[in-house]
């Protein structure tokens, strides 16, 4: 596949992620912070988000598995996950966290367990999408091309 085709495929894929609500405008901010002096910024931040999130999801699973659930602790973990997902533009994960926090406030164990499943589901979806997006970018750079800026008209 030649570079132009790869670039078009990347642009189309990125646009789909925005339209399906996986990513929001904050992701564009991250892309704009990447330049020749920081060519790996997006990969680095996204990788950090993955590591951070997986740890938080583990902590959440453990916290909700206790005989006496400490909802303050659960809420603190969800707050962190909401913060990082919001900062990288992972909109659906962020929204799942917002719903999760509401149920934490109610101390509703069944609902919070369902929320955890929902957050995990959204997280693994966006992780998969972002890995695909970053792989497409890598292929373009490896072929000597440049990553086209995402024009979303925001």
């Amino acid at each position, binding site marked *: 596949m030649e570079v132009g085709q790869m670039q078009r495929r990347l642009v189309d894929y990125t646009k789909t992620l925005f339209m399906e609500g996986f990513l929001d405008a*904050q992701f564009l*901010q*991250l892309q*704009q*912070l990447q330049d020749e002096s*920081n060519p790996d*910024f997006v990969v*680095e*931040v996204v990788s*950090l*988000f993955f590591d*951070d999130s997986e740890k938080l999801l583990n902590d959440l699973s453990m916290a909700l598995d206790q005989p006496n659930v400490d909802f303050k602790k659960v809420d*603190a973990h969800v*707050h*962190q996950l*909401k*913060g*990082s997902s*919001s*900062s*990288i*533009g992972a909109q659906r994960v962020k929204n799942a966290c917002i719903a999760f926090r509401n149920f934490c406030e109610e101390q509703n164990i069944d609902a919070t367990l369902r929320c955890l499943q929902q957050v995990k589901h959204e997280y693994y979806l966006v992780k998969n999408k972002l890995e695909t997006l970053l792989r497409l970018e890598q292929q373009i750079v490896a072929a000597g091309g440049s990553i086209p800026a995402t024009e979303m008209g925001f």
Partner: protein
Amino acid sequence: MAAQGRHGGKKSNKMTALVVDDNTVNRMIHHRLLDNLGIENVAVVNGKEAVDIHCSGKTFDLILMDMDMPVMNGIEATRQLREMGIRSMIAGVSTRSMEREIREFIEAGLDDYQEKPLTMSKLISIIHKING
């Protein structure tokens, strides 16, 4: 952008900033936003570390202060820094949306407040307030 030289008379051409946030992803993004604008910056992970770094004698032109943090939150840290006589621009950044909570944060001594997530344009509007 020249520093105001209000700390110990040492003038440098680079602005300095302190990022105070317990979230690793946010610290990385705020660091890069500031770097991109040529602002030297360091990051700490809670309000107590923000106070401690000032006790050690360091000062900054700008402090980006998160609200919810363990050990010491942004409201308490802002209060303490003002009581210590710190006159730096302190911009609160938070996801909180309730007016009452934001007001409490502002009344602790903020010069500006921005809703997270921080963007380049929000950061630039904060910086304009320092120089304006």
